[in-house]
């Protein structure tokens, strides 16, 4: 039996790695990957506390978080396609205007 604190520590570490990626990267695709890391950090917590309470609500909720992440990635990749088409790059710092 792993105490719940260690799940929380793992989740915090994954979240902070995702935060670091968002703060430092310029590539839009790496942005998406970092957001996925942060969402999955939340998923670790949901599943861990589902185990702690012996109730499956957390695991089911984690499934829904994954579905929302899929929707977010679909829209994000669409935005990246437009970004590449209009600026010939996926560097988010190049797109400084909201018009094209």
């Amino acid at each position: 039996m792993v105490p719940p604190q260690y799940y929380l520590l793992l989740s915090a570490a994954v979240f902070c790695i995702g935060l670091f990626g968002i703060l430092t990267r310029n590539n839009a695709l790496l942005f998406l990957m970092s957001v996925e890391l942060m969402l999955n950090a939340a998923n670790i917590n949901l599943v861990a506390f589902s185990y702690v309470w012996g109730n499956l609500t957390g695991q089911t909720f984690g499934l829904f978080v994954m579905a929302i992440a899929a929707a977010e990635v679909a829209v994000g990749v669409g935005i990246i396609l437009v970004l590449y088409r209009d600026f010939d790059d996926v560097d988010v710092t190049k797109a400084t205007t909201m018009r094209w």
Partner: protein
Amino acid sequence: MTTKPELKLGSHLVPGLAAVALFVVMAAAFMPASFPAPQGFAEGAGITASIGYAMFNLDLGEVSAESFLVAFETIDILLVAALVGAVMLARRESGDGTMTVVTDGGRRLREALSGDDDEEVSD
């Protein structure tokens, strides 16, 4: 252009410190907290089947969970909206509204645009 991620100490120092500081704060908050001993799930309980029952409001699962039918339907609408949004974003705006499907991977179009007609592969 292919770039690989590099750690630049100059510009990445402050975000790195911020991330590490957030981790330290969260760890300091988590470690002294006391949680009850994990209850876990019963030996041989059908976890996957119970999740499936919980998603459709069926009260047949061996492990208790709340019902998620409304969330399930909401996510259905969200996924359709995201799919339509992604297609709308990725669609190419052509001037006359008609567009022929390029089935050769864009090779012919590229040759026509660049002007050279060296055909390496003739199929």
